[in-house]
């Protein structure tokens, strides 16, 4: 294991990049990040326009950073100080573009074969056949990208990159436009692929679902800067900034006033909005009377039809259901506890608890489900 780990780390991607993009607008966009991606899947998470694709373009060598350094293992791919600038084709990086960029004049099969020029015929055929099947595009092998559907194009692009043996893999929203079943299948494939190769994979997505299914680590980018990084749970569950909180799906964002600090317990009490609701949240740099903002994920709130007893959870709020709406596989309940809460529950639970509008309910909130927003 040790040996493997060392080998793994020696192929990590370490980059620090500065790149200014100047459009026609007066304000220009500046990407300025330092990051490290060990082998395994690292998710790049961030709002639209945060700079994720720009970062990948820099890593792939398609855009030249203004300054910085990019290293994979021992290999320096880019170093503005030493004036090193490897061409994209020398970087051994596979990259699935957001815009796919399939070759329009080549068939699906030829597209996929394209990156395998160096491999003997026999081998190549086998590998292509295998991946064609894995991505369920074997029936389309002789069709051109103009003659297949959007999702089929997406899969072809993914297959085209994965079939090569890269040292780093960059995936820019590779699963958009695929249905749930395919998504699940491809996620499984990707995981297996990752387990087999253990190379750094940078994976851009907006989808919490994909983050949770794939991410070993997350790097959150906002407006061209890395605003946090770590394991998905830590990073995305404990939002540092309000913008991110919204991005990551914290449905409840509440203004509150600090009532008292209980430092020994590592908690403090706050009052929500103008209501009388008081809850316990993790301690933060704040003084009594300060106004703070708490973010609570709708799925982290438990709902009960009787006042729960003997629970470890400290925050129990009494309220009344205002509305119940279906949201995907979930139900979204709006509960008025003085302040309005959004709670996600399973339809099964709704039925079991016979929930309906105007019904009295209790909300259960664990202290550590309440995140303070900077």
């Amino acid at each position, binding site marked *: 294991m040790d040996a493997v780990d060392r080998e793994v780390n020696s192929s990590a991607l370490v980059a620090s990049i500065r790149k200014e993009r100047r459009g026609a607008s007066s304000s220009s966009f500046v990407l300025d990040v330092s990051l490290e991606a060990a082998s395994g899947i690292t998710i790049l998470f961030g709002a639209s326009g945060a700079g994720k694709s720009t970062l990948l373009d820099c890593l792939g060598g*398609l855009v030249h950073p203004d300054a910085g350094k990019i290293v994979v293992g021992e290999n320096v791919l880019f170093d503005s100080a030493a004036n090193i600038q490897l061409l*994209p*084709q020398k970087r051994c*990086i*596979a990259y699935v573009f957001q815009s796919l960029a399939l*070759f329009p004049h080549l068939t699906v099969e030829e597209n996929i074969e394209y990156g395998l020029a160096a491999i003997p015929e026999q081998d190549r055929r086998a590998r292509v056949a295998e991946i064609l099947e894995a991505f369920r595009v074997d029936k389309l092998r002789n069709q051109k990208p103009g003659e297949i559907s959007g999702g089929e194009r997406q899969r072809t692009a993914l297959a085209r*990159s994965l079939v090569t043996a890269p040292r780093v893999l960059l995936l820019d929203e590779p699963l958009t436009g695929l249905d749930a079943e395919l998504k699940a299948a491809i996620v499984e494939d990707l995981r297996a692929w990752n387990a087999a190769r253990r190379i750094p994979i940078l994976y851009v997505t907006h989808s919490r679902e994909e983050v949770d299914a794939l991410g070993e680590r997350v790097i959150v980018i906002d407006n061209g800067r890395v605003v946090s990084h770590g394991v998905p749970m830590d990073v995305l569950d404990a939002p540092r900034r309000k913008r991110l909180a919204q991005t990551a799906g914290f449905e409840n964002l509440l203004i509150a006033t600090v009532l008292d600090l209980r430092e020994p317990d590592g908690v403090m009490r706050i009052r929500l909005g103008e209501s009388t609701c008081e809850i316990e949240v993790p301690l933060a740099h704040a003084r009594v009377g300060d106004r703070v903002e708490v973010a609570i994920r709708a799925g982290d709130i438990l709902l009960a039809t009787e006042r729960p007893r003997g629970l470890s959870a400290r925050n129990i709020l009494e309220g009344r259901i205002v509305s119940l709406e279906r949201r995907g596989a979930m139900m979204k309940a709006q509960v008025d506890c003085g302040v309005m809460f959004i709670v996600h529950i399973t339809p099964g639970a709704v039925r079991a608890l016979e929930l309906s509008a105007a019904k009295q309910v209790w909300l259960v909130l664990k202290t550590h489900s309440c995140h303070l927003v900077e």
Partner: protein
Amino acid sequence: MNSLWLSFELAGCVAAILLVIGMPVAYWLAYSSWRGKFLLESIVALPLVLPPTVLGFYALVAMGPRGPLGKLWATFFGHGLAFTFSGLVLASVVYSFPFAVQPLMVSFEAVDRKLLDASAVLGAGRWRTFRRIILPLSLPGVVTALVLSFAHTLGEFGVVLMVGGNLAGVTRTVSIDIYDRVQSLEYGEANHLALILLAIAFAVLCLVYAVNRRVWTPWTAK
């Protein structure tokens, strides 16, 4: 009839050579990021601006025994360049250069840069990218370059007359032949020859275009 064959041979040679030397030039013009490349683009178009006979005259002087090209050629091959088939080819190549380079350049430039990025990221070097992506996607431009340089050489006469000297079987192309007959007021024969030339040229062009259509329409069509 001899002159007809000679013309097609010349036009074929010139078109082939122009394709080969036009491509690197067009590639460079299309992809270089040098700010002054419009200067080169302009220079490429310049041979067009001079009357062909005058260009031919300059070519003649350059290729003559006292001209720099002629001298160079003579040291290698022991004979002059003017009044030979090679000389004709050379002069026609210079004269038709813009017709090859311009369409190639425009076509190369029109290839989506994202595809070139994709090719690079898939490990393909410049040459492979050119051969597998740029060239097939520029096929219409290549065909145009071929057709224009081929047809233009077929019809060329000023340069050819000057450099070639109208020697039967060696440098008397069909265009000069027709010209001669028109000059001698032998209209019947001139018409006859012109018609044959047009018919063959038409057949060749049809072939090129028909193949071209079939080959590259699929991925533009809906």
